[in-house]
């Protein structure tokens, strides 16, 4: 799988950022939250509804900017610039934990989770 984890400074660069769910984690929707298991860190995370929406759209082919515009702003009534800033911070944190993969180019999704319910 292509793609690499980027730092915050790189995430804030002008180009599109593509995000994909890591192949190394386990995840499922439990009610209104997503539960994520990171075996390598022996850690469990839960994502709230906004973070879960980003997670669900992280297919490697859709840029984070599009995810924010198309889903977050519409569903959660938040200003685009605020939503993008928060989304980038979330992506950075999850990428730092190996939960998401970030790249400036679309990410091949073979063996990526095809179902994040």
């Amino acid at each position, binding site marked *: 799988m292509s793609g690499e984890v980027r730092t915050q400074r790189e995430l804030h660069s002008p180009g599109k950022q593509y995000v994909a*769910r890591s*192949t*190394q*984690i*386990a*995840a*499922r*929707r*439990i*009610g209104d*939250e997503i*539960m994520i*298991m990171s*075996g*390598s860190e*022996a*850690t*469990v995370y*839960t994502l709230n509804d906004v973070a879960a929406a980003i997670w669900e759209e992280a297919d490697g082919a859709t840029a984070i900017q599009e995810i924010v515009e198309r889903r977050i702003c519409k569903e959660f009534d938040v200003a685009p610039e605020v939503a993008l800033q928060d989304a980038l911070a979330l992506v950075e944190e999850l990428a730092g934990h190996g939960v998401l993969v970030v790249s400036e180019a679309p990410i091949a999704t073979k*063996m*990526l*989770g*095809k*179902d*994040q*319910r």
Partner: protein
Amino acid sequence: MNSLMAEMGEKALALGIPLTVQLDLTYRCNERCVHCYLDHDDHGEMTAAEYKKLLDELAEAGVLFLTLSGGEIMLRKDFFEILEYARSLMFSVKLKTNAVLIREEEARRLRELAVESVQISVYSHRAEVHDAITLLPGSLEKSIEAARFLKSQGLRVMLADVLMRQNQQDYGGVKALAAELGVQFFLDPTITPMMDGDRSILSLNVNQDALQKVMRDEALVGNVEEFCSIPNGASEDDLESFPCSAAHTFCYVSPYGDVYPCVQFPLPSGNVRRTPFLEIWNQSPQLNEVRSIHLRDLPSCSQCVHGNTCTRCPGLAFLEGNMRGPSTQDCEKSFARTGIPSKNLEAKRASANGQSAVRGLIQIQGVSISSAPQTA
């Protein structure tokens, strides 16, 4: 992590989500463990395509934690095909195996597929004891080699031991071996009856003295004083609790597609070859009966002093004849732990004494009868 896991477990319980499922891929095995509860013949295992369909259904139902077990899972030629599919659906996968067939290449693939952990059955640190239990010469050496291969890949490994007469002196050795390998250790003090109800293998259970020694081994249980403390009986809150996660957030699917509340609770509740999993999970009368039972509904256990601390397994109770009854094996564990007999053990003792008294009475009558001719 534990509190978050507990929170998600409670959420799954409230939402009726089967958070954890054990899926056996085969009952065939390359070992013939003397204490095994399975019939190792193949009676028509599900195909890889059937497993994939089931995995889709389990993901849809909300299952996150998936245990793949058997039988020996590595005997399936399509094992990695099924595992890869499960991981593509983002299950957290735990494997239970004897690991005899896991070499460096298999360990590398398991790491690539990011399995959560691998549990390896090891019954002694001594080959003559372990191999006499598995009836497979050389099996201990192979299993330990596999543990090293898996560990070197950075995988989480656990050695799982089952306490029985043959190896009751050796669990400390297995624990030390696990420490040397840098892996976890787990000891199960319970021999499970055969799934067909045959209880003959229970004769392999250790006696009370050996069980008491295990229950009071600080290296195993931690704070002995706390672990073995005198129980208080069940509170009102305890009485409202469920006996265990079986049918609440957990269930088991056999290689033939049969759904049970638990691997140790062989109550047929549906078959995924005929009915979608979620329909079985939500509508099976058997699963609904199991999940309707609170501690309050257990006639003996709700009144027992061990009610709130007992490890009572409803599956073992079912195998003993009544899913609402006590599990005598767990009563014996509670007794070994605290020195206080359970209500069930007291009743059995009273019954045994009663029988002795009846036998005594019969003997007296017999004497009187037999002596009658002498006096006649």
